[in-house]
C-alpha cells in the first residue's frame, strides 16, 4: 500500500494559480480538501477549488475518515420474495483524492494501513485505500502542540503519500512519490520539471519548518519504560481532570478502534461499523456487567499504552504521529506532551 519500492521519486513544480485548473481536471475523482466554515476547518468534498483553505496548520478532525469512515455500512439485509432475504454489500469504487493532507495525517493513514491491510486484510479498508490518492502538503508553520519529530515523523515526511507538495512562494514544489501520483501528473500538462533552484528553495523551506519544532520529546523511551508502569500511581494523578469523553480519540489520526452493530428499521437491517473509543466505559464492558477498565485512569492508561507500547510491540513503531490534536481540542487541556515527558523521566 505504501509507495512501491521500484518507483523513483521525480520532482516537478506547479504555479499556484494553476492549482484550481489542476483540480478541475480531476473530475473522475471525489476531492477532499480542507475547507473553512466559520471557525471550523475540516476536510470536505470540494466542488469549488477556491474554497480550499491551505493556510491553516491542520483541520480539527483528521482526514482518516476518508479511508475509515466513522460510520461504514458493511451490508444491508432486506426481505425478498417468499421469506428469502437479500443481502447487499456496498460498492466501494469511488475514487478519492485527499488534497492538502498534512504529512502527520498521511503517516496516520500509513499506520492504519499496517493494521487494516497487514496480516488481516479488511476488505472495506483495502478497497477504499486503493482508490485513494494522497496529495500531501508539507508543513511550514507547525503548531505549538505539534511534536511529529519526536515520534518518527517530520513536517515533510512522505510516509503514505503519493505526492508531496511544498509551498515555495509562487510555486508548489511537487515531489511525485508513487505511480499513482505520476498518473495524475501525466494526465494534466500543468506541471513542469523542477529546476535545481526550485529544489534549493524547497530544501530551505523544509529546513525552516524543522527548525520551528524546537521541542524534542524522548518518546522512543516509552515502549521500554511502560513495561513497568502499569500499576503506577501516575495514572491516578494524571487522569484526575480527564472527563472521559472521546474527543481525543475521535480527532486522532491513528485511533482505529471500531464497533459493529446491526441497526434495525422495520423489516430491514443494516450492519454498520462505527468508530469506538477506549475512553468510553462501554468500550470494555462485559456481557456479565463486569468492566475490566472501570475508571477513567484505566482508560486513559490504555490510550497511552496502546499508542506507545502495544502498537510498538506489534508494528515496531509508535502509534502516534504527533499532530497534537488531543492537546489542542481537549476540553480540560490534558497535555499528552507533558505526559510523554513525565513518563520518559520515570
Amino acid at each position, binding site marked *: 500500500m505504501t509507495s512501491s519500492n521500484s518507483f523513483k521519486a521525480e520532482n516537478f513544480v506547479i504555479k499556484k494559480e494553476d492549482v484550481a485548473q489542476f483540480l478541475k481536471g480531476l473530475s473522475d475523482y471525489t476531492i477532499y480538501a480542507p475547507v473553512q466554515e466559520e471557525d471550523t476547518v475540516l476536510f470536505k468534498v470540494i466542488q469549488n477549488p477556491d474554497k480550499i483553505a491551505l493556510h491553516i496548520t491542520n483541520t*480539527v478532525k483528521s482526514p482518516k475518515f476518508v479511508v475509515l469512515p466513522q460510520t461504514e455500512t458493511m451490508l444491508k439485509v432486506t426481505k425478498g420474495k417468499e421469506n428469502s432475504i437479500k443481502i447487499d454489500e456496498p460498492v466501494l469504487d469511488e475514487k478519492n483524492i485527499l488534497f492538502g493532507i498534512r504529512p502527520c495525517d498521511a503517516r496516520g493513514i500509513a499506520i492504519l494501513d499496517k493494521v487494516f491491510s497487514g496480516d488481516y486484510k479488511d476488505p472495506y479498508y483495502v478497497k477504499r485505500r486503493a482508490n485513494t490518492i494522497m496529495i500531501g502538503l508539507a508543513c511550514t508553520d507547525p503548531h505549538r502542540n505539534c511534536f511529529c519529530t519526536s515520534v518518527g515523523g517530520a513536517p515533510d515526511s512522505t510516509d503514505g503519500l503519493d505526492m508531496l507538495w511544498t509551498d515555495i512562494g509562487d510555486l508548489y514544489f511537487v515531489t511525485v512519490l508513487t505511480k499513482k501520483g505520476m498518473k495524475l501528473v501525466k494526465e494534466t500538462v500543468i506541471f513542469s520539471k523542477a529546476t535545481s533552484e526550485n529544489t534549493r528553495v524547497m530544501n530551505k523551506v523544509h529546513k525552516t519548518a524543522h527548525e520551528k519544532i524546537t521541542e524534542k520529546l524522548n518518546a522512543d523511551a516509552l515502549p521500554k519504560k511502560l513495561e513497568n508502569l502499569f500499576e503506577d500511581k501516575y495514572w491516578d494523578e494524571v487522569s484526575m481532570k480527564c472527563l472521559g*469523553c472521546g474527543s481525543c480519540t475521535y480527532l486522532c489520526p491513528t485511533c482505529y478502534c471500531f464497533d459493529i452493530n446491526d441497526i434495525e428499521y422495520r423489516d430491514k437491517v443494516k450492519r454498520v461499523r462505527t468508530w469506538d473509543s477506549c475512553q468510553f466505559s462501554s468500550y470494555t464492558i462485559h456481557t456479565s456487567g463486569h468492566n475490566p477498565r472501570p475508571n477513567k485512569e484505566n482508560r486513559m492508561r490504555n490510550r497511552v499504552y496502546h499508542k506507545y507500547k502495544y502498537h510498538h510491540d506489534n508494528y515496531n513503531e509508535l502509534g502516534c504521529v504527533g499532530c497534537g490534536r488531543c492537546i489542542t481540542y481537549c476540553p480540560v487541556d490534558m497535555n499528552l506532551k507533558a505526559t510523554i515527558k513525565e513518563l520518559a523521566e520515570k
Partner: protein
Amino acid sequence: MSDIEGNIQAKAKKLLKDGTIKYFIGYENGSDPLHTTPCFIKKAEDVDKIVWNPLCVNNLAGYLTHDKKRELKKGEEEDKKPIGILVKGCDSKSLVQLLSEHRIEKDEVIIFGVPCDGVIDPKKLEKVLKDKNLSVNTIDSLTIQHDGKNYTVKVNGKKYSFPKDKIEMSKCSDCTQPNPIISDETFGEKVKKSDKKDYKTVEEIEALPLAKRWKFWSDQFAKCIRCSACRNVCPVCYCKECVVDSADLVITPQTTSSEKANKMPWLEKNVDPAENMFFHLTRMMHMAGRCINCGECERACPMNIPLSLLTKKLEKEVKEMFDYEAGIDVEAKPLLSIFEEDDPGDFIK
C-alpha cells in the same frame, strides 16, 4: 500574583495541612499561555501551582461527582473527607444544582467562592492575537488585566488592549450571577453585572421560518462526531450509566440473557443526522430545569456546534412557562417533579 490568588493558596494550604480536605480543585497554568487547566492539589506544598485569572474558564463543579462514580481498587479505602473547590458565580449555580439534587451534600465540600468579572474565551483570544500577528507559537508569557470595558493583555512584555466582547466568553455578557451564591469563604470584592438575561441569539433563531430552523440545526448536528465531550463536561450530567450508551445500562447477576438481548438501543452507534439529533434532544430534555447555562458544552465541543443556543432556549422556556430557574436555591424541588395547576396546556387537545 494577585491578592485573591495568594489568599486562595494560603487558605488551601491551611486546609490541606490540617487534613480538613482530601484535595483542592482549582486552576493551574495550562499547556500554553492561553490556557489554564483544572488542577487537583493534594499536598500543602503544591498550593503555589494554583492560579486565579481571567483565563480560568472551566466549571469545576462537575468534578465533585467524579469520585462517586469511581470504582475503588482492591484494598483501597474511600477517603470521606470533604473536597475543597474553587467556584465562580456561574459555577456556584451548578454546585447549588448538585446540592439540591443531593448528588453531593454540603458537608462533602468546602467552597472557595470568587466573584468573577468575566472570563476569557481562549479561542477568541487566539484569534484576536493572530490578527495582531501574534501566533500562539511565539507567545512565551501572557498576563491579562481587566479594566472596566477592556482587557489589557500583556504578551511577551508588550501591552495590547481588547474590548470585552471581543475576547470574553459569550456567556459572560449577560451574566446575572457573578458572585457565588454559596461559599464557605469568598475571595475578592463583589461584582456587579447584568440584571437581565439576553436572549437575542435565541430569538433570532425562533424568528426564522421552520424550514430555515431545520436547515440551521441539521447542518450543525451533521458536524457532531458524538465524542460526548458536551455530556461529559456538563457538571450536572453525573449519571454513571447514560441512557444513550445502551451497552452500559445496568446489568446485575439477575439480568437474564433475554433481557440483555432485548435491551432497547435508544441511541444507535452510527453517526448520522437522525441519531445525532436524537442524542442532542435527549440531552436537552435531561437538562430541562437543571442546566444553568455555564456554557461548558459549547466550549468543549471540538466541532464548534453552538450548543448554548439550545441550552439558552431551554432556560428561556423554563423561565417563561414555569417561572423556574435552576441552580438558585438548594432547597428547590426539581422542575419536572413538581407541577402547578395552571401550567401551560394550550397545546393539548
